[in-house]
């Protein structure tokens, strides 16, 4: 294997977005016929790198070279990269639910009869062939929506095989699969390797990576940290974790000694939530947690672990269906059937996706700031614009939102300043419990530090804060206490002082209790 030539080399790839460098001089070398895994925390740049490779970010939008089969490739879009044999399968599958398996496999690529119409017999025949290759025995005429996610994943691979794939990129292929389906899929990827298909796999499940990969490239904060040969370097999960989280913790967090922490005032018991579309999938399983006054509680977990789902389902049942559970505040049970009830009870939720869920980008700053509790400045239903302006302006000064005036549209602000507007919006509701979901995602370091300061200040003023974050240094630096969540289950609770990235990552990637029990 070591002797096989490199089929792909990405040399010195740098990708900039306005205000952010997503990839900085990243190098990736993949040998022909291997399974190469890319590891890194959320936001490290894995997906961006794959988008550069597959032409989603076309040639010219990045710096550096992609050398594919010995020649510099200049993919301008996905079509061109696919024509060269590079096929990417995204985490969110790109299948059309209403169409059949066969129709999906040949979508955009339909075999034609001499008259130009679709050759349906050829479609079925070749579909059956491809399905056999991926080990799927379903009828090609079955509608996609009637088969499970595991099988859908296989259909995606069949679709890729139809395109004569040489390099298959799988982004979190097993994230939505159960154990059985995952094993089957991994087996298939191995089979394909033996038949000469090279694969790049992105996964958070380190045990899978360890089991299947020939080599691993670790990315952190947009930089290549290291490339490892699994066998030669004797790589195990701990080794990968060390590379992913790094050892250097910069001193960019506000100091806190836990002195202002009061009594438990908020408690969730036995909280179980069902996925809105897939009834058998539970996104939160019998979760229990508490928050004290003046405390910042961290929720650690990988993407898809169910942190957002847990938070949103508590915040006025904004997600899924709550099957069981109770919420207590100041010792009394409270009911939160909708968002306005949650706001009335002093809850606030700052969404991880500010553009889609946090802000109306058509609004100006002052309108956004007061939007979650308009009643406060609207006696008799008429908005007091004098107050609106002065309140928004006070927040502008307090949070140092960089804008000439609060009459400016929020869509024109940078990510960090938009996030400050969202924070102001929820501070304006006078929350007792502030849930912050990835509050620093996509924000530059300077603004991050400011936001950490705001979070600590809020806690010091007596509010409880839940901090959901994928950045372990952030959790360790800001939180007082951390819960880890894995696949909807709270797997551990640990004081931030006693925690380190390695132990956290362990509880985030497996359920120790479950293993012990089994």
């Amino acid at each position, binding site marked *: 294997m070591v002797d096989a030539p490199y089929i792909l080399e990405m040399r010195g790839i740098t990708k900039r977005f306005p205000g952010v460098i997503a990839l900085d001089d990243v190098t990736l070398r993949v040998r022909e016929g291997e399974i190469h895994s890319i590891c890194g925390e959320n936001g490290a740049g894995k997906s961006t790198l794959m988008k550069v490779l597959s032409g989603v970010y076309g040639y010219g939008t990045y710096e550096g070279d992609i050398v594919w089969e010995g020649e510099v490739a200049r993919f301008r879009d996905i079509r061109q990269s696919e024509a060269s044999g590079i096929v990417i399968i*995204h985490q969110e599958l790109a299948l059309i639910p209403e169409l059949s398996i066969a129709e999906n496999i040949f979508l955009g690529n339909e075999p034609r009869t001499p008259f130009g119409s679709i050759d349906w017999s050829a479609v079925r025949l070749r579909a059956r062939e491809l399905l056999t290759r991926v080990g799927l025995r379903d009828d090609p005429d079955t509608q996609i929506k009637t088969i499970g996610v595991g099988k859908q994943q296989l259909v995606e691979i069949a679709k890729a095989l139809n395109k004569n794939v040489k390099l298959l990129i799988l982004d979190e292929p097993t994230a939505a699969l159960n154990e059985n389906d995952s094993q089957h899929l991994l087996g298939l990827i191995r089979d394909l390797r033996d038949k000469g298909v090279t694969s790049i796999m992105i996964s958070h499940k380190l045990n899978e990576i360890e089991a299947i990969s020939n080599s691993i490239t670790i990315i952190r904060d947009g930089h290549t940290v290291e490339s490892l040969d699994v066998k030669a370097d004797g790589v195990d999960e701990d080794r990968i974790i060390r590379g992913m989280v790094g050892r250097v913790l910069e001193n960019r967090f506000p100091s806190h000694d836990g002195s202002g922490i009061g009594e438990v005032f908020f408690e969730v018991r036995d909280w179980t939530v069902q996925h809105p579309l897939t009834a058998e999938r539970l996104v939160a399983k019998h979760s229990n947690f508490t928050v004290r006054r003046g405390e910042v509680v961290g929720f650690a977990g990988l993407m898809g672990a169910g942190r957002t789902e847990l938070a949103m389902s508590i915040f006025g049942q904004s997600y899924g269906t709550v099957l069981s559970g109770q919420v207590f505040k100041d010792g009394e049970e409270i009911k939160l059937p909708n968002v306005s009830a949650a706001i009335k009870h002093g809850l606030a939720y700052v969404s991880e996706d500010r553009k889609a869920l946090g802000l109306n980008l058509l609004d100006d700053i002052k309108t956004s700031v007061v939007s979650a509790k308009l009643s406060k400045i609207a006696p008799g239903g008429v908005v007091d614009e004098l107050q609106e302006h002065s309140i928004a302006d006070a927040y502008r000064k307090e949070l140092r939102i960089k804008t*000439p005036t609060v009459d400016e549209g929020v869509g024109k602000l940078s990510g960090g300043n938009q996030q400050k507007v969202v924070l102001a919006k929820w501070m304006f509701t006078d929350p007792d419990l502030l849930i912050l979901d990835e509050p620093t995602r996509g924000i530059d370091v300077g603004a991050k530090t400011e936001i950490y300061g705001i979070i600590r200040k809020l806690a010091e003023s007596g509010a409880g804060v839940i901090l959901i974050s994928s950045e372990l240094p952030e959790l360790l630096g800001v939180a007082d206490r951390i819960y880890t969540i894995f696949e909807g289950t709270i797997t551990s609770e640990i004081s931030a002082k006693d925690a380190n990235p390695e132990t956290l990552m362990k509880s985030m990637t497996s359920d120790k209790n479950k293993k012990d029990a089994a």
Partner: protein
Amino acid sequence: MTDTAAAPKKSGGIRDLGKMFGGGQSSVRQFGILGALVAIIIIFQVLTGGKTLEPGNVINIVNQNAYVLILAIGMVMVIIAGHIDLSVGSVAAFTGIIVAIAMNRGGVPWWLGVLIGLGIGALVGAWQGFWVAYVGVPAFIVTLAGMLVFRGLNQFVGNSTTEPIKDDVFLQIGGGYLPDPNLGIAYNVPTLVLGLVAAVFVIVNEFRMRARQRKVGAESAPLWVSIVKVVLLSAVIIVAAFLFAGGRVGTSFPIPGIILVALVIIYAFVTNNTVTGRHIYSVGGNWHAAELSGVKIKRINFFVMMNMSILAAVAGMVFISRSVSSGPGDGTSWELDAIAAVFIGGAAVSGGIGTVIGSIVGGLVIAVLNNGLQLLGVSSDKVQIIKGLVLLLAVGIDVLSKRSGGRSLISRFSRPKKVSAADENMTYPLNRPLVEPDGSSAEQSSRPSSTTPNA
């Protein structure tokens, strides 16, 4: 802070003029469409040799278009919330026939007739609002059904015949004028008084607003802009007052115009200054964010649909009063005129953007165009073609100039030169790109978005 604060000042005049409309995000578009209205008026004034701005014609324009403009008020709120209402013409006709029959055959007094009409509008609106807000059927479908159902009901109830209206008071609603005290002046005095009051109100309001803005340190337009604005506006009002007052004896500012102006003032206030108004914009702008801010989306959707039907009922009553009868073909294609007015007036098809005033200006553009072409003797087939192209052009220019997150044509001249990186990269929630700068969020965001929709 200080360096960016200095930037807007450099751009000067045109941007400041945009503030005449409050300086909001859609004010620039409205500024453009108001300019178009003025241009059209001037063009037709020249082409018709002065007939366009004759008192009789101006009164005529108001009378002929009041009901469509009333519909446009409700329609813009529906469109801001992200819906559409195709049923307004049928609802107006259905209300009309019932009110006509109730008064004519049932001997109901005029005021009860009006109340019955409003009640019908409310019931119809509740029916359609229920389907849109609580069942989750798209408004396009619900109101397409309503268009058929209420047209049919109009013809069923009225037996497809025309019902005359005889009540003198009711006939004033659509055909009446301000009283003429006959003081021996060539002008109608109440109309002039009304104009004067309006002009004073405009002036006082502008300077009160400036005082308030100063008090809170808000950005306010330069003084000269305010003065130009006030002088222009009050001049237009006074000239208009003289026009309306100077018509044939017995005519003055028409009652439908008064109903229209009253509704415009009320609804401009509701949309701009009340919690309900804010919520309508937020639902249309980004209903996910609105829901997570505690806005009761269903209630808002129900309200805008119901409100639309009530205004359709008002329009229907104004119309039957003006035409002295209610017939089976009343209100045909009104919905299209109202929708066109709203979009010409700067509303966005995707919701979240639009104003009552803008829609009225948009409606007036169509009205003056219609009227001018008729005065010129252009046949109705050509009038339709021209109206269609004007709609396409008005919205097309706007779409083209904002393509792929770019800035609108007008705002390119009127906004500060300095563009922040975020501005260029800005995307509206409805057409978010597949790929987000911060790599991971695109995949993850689809998860919370898949919560149960506002159905």
